[in-house]
C-alpha cells in the first residue's frame, strides 16, 4: 500500500488487538445492517455507525459489537490516536508516523486504514445507532444502487 511517498506493507499481528469496531463490506454490510436493526435499543445506544459506499463500520465496546458471517474487526492503534487498524494486521512502519502522514493527507480524523480492499475510511461522522440512522443508511445505499 502506498498512498504516501514512502511505500509500506501489512504484516500480520502476533497478538490481535481487542476489537472495537465491526467492519463489513458488500453483502456482509447488508447482513450487519439487518443485524443492527434487531439488537436491543439499549445495546444500540452504546454503538456508533457510519456507512461509506459499500462499507458499514460499527464502533463500540467489544462485548457490544455485533457478529455476522464475513464481518471483520478493527481497533484503534495503541501508539497513534486517531488511527484505526484491522485487529489482525499492522503496518510495517511506525504507526504514529503513518497516522501523522495520513491525517496530513486526508485532513480528517480518526481514520480507519483497511487492508482488503486498500482504502482509508474517515470515522469522524459516526452516529449513535438508532432506527433513524439505520434508515438513512438504507436509503443512501438504495439511492446509490438505483443510480449505479
Amino acid at each position: 500500500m502506498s498512498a504516501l511517498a514512502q511505500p509500506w506493507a501489512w504484516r500480520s499481528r502476533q497478538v490481535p488487538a481487542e476489537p472495537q469496531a465491526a467492519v463489513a463490506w458488500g453483502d456482509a454490510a447488508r447482513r450487519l445492517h439487518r443485524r443492527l436493526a434487531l439488537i436491543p435499543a439499549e445495546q444500540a445506544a452504546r454503538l456508533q455507525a457510519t456507512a461509506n459506499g459499500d462499507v458499514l463500520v460499527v464502533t463500540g465496546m467489544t462485548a457490544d459489537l455485533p457478529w455476522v458471517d464475513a464481518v471483520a474487526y478493527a481497533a484503534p492503534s495503541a501508539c497513534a490516536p486517531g488511527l484505526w487498524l484491522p485487529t489482525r494486521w499492522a503496518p510495517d512502519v511506525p504507526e504514529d508516523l503513518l497516522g501523522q502522514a495520513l491525517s496530513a493527507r486526508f485532513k480528517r480524523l480518526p481514520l480507519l486504514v483497511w487492508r482488503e480492499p486498500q482504502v482509508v475510511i474517515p470515522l469522524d461522522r459516526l452516529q449513535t445507532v438508532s432506527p433513524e440512522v439505520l434508515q438513512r443508511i438504507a436509503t443512501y445505499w438504495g439511492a446509490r444502487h438505483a443510480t449505479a
Partner: protein
Amino acid sequence: MIAQLHSAAAQIRQAVRAATEGLVGREQLAELIVLAAVAQEHILVIGPPGTAKSAVVRRVAQSMGGRYFEYLLGRFTEPSELFGAVDLKKLREGTVETDVSGMLPEADIVFLDEVFLGSTAILNTLLGVLNERRFRRGHTQVQCPLRVCVGAANGLPDDEALAAFGDRFLLHLFVESVPDNQLEAMLAGGWQSEQRPVQQLLGLTQLDTLSQAMKSVDLGNVRPALAQAIRRLREAGIQLSDRRIVKSQRLIAAAALLGGRLEASEADLWPLLYVLPTQETQQHGREVLRDLFAASSNSHLFSAVEEATLQPMSRFNRLLETAEDYLARSEPPASAVLEGLLREIDANFDSQTLPEPLQQARGQLTRLLTPAE
C-alpha cells in the same frame, strides 16, 4: 503408561474447568496450581485483594479432593495457628510435641494469604515444609503430604530475607482486577459460582500418577532450547538464580506430562515465563522469548500457555474447547454468547489462518445462531 497419562491429564483438565466455572479470567491461576502440584513446586500469586485468588484455590482444592488448609496471616499470627498447639499430655511427660491434627502439616493443598506477614518463626518452619515436605518443631518431626502451597500477597517484599522466602515459590503469577469489558460476565459468573458447590471430580491419585511419572520424562531434546532461552534473558539483562534455572526443568517436565507426553519438547518451554520473579521481568521476558515460545502449546493448559506466550496456536486450543463445549450442550447458549465466541474467532483468525477443526466448529456455531435475516 501413555494411556494412563492421557486419562489423568484429561481428568485434571475437567477438574480445572469445574473449579473455574463462573470465575472470569481465573483459569490461568487454576492451571498453574495444577502445574505446580504435578511438579511438586509452589506458586506465589501477587495481586490486589478481592481478585478471587482464595476462591480459585479453594475450588481447585475441592475439585481435587484431599485435605485443604487455608489461613490469612497477620503480624501477630502465632505458629500454633498454622502448625498446631503444643500437645499438653506429652508436655506433662516431658516432651515438647505439636498436635498437628487438622493443621497445615497434614494438608495436601495449602493456601496462605498475606504470606509475607508471617513471623520469622513461621516462615522458617514453613521453609522446611515447602522445601523438604518435613515439619520440624521441638520433638515433633512429621513427613508432610503437601502437594502444593499457594502463597498470596499484594506485592513482592523489598526486605531481602522476605524476598529470599518468596524465591522458594518457583512460579510467580501476577493477577489484575477483571478488565472493564468482562465486568458483566464476572457479575453473572460470580453469582452462579456462589450458588453452585464444586463437585469433587478427582482423587489425588491422578495428580500422583503424573507426579510419579516426572522422573521418566526425557528432557534431552528441550535442554538446548532452555539454555538458549536463559542466554537470551541474560543478554536482555534478566538474571535468574541457578536454583530457579535448574528447577524450571521440573515445570517443563510437568507441562509435558499434562500434555500427555513423556518427552518434553519446545512446546513445553512456556512455564519458564512464570519462573521470572517480577512483573517487569515477565513482561520483558515475554518479548525476548517470543520466537522461542512460538511452538508452545498444551492440550490441557490453554490459558496459562496463552498468557505466557501470546501465541495464536495456544489461543486456538482455548477457542476450540469453548466451541466444542457450546456445541455439545443439549441447550445451546444464548445468541449473545455464541456471537461473542464467533467474534473472538474472527478477530483472531481469517479464512487462511483458521485451523481446520476450528473452521468446522465455527460453521456449526454459525448454524446454531438464528439467522438475522
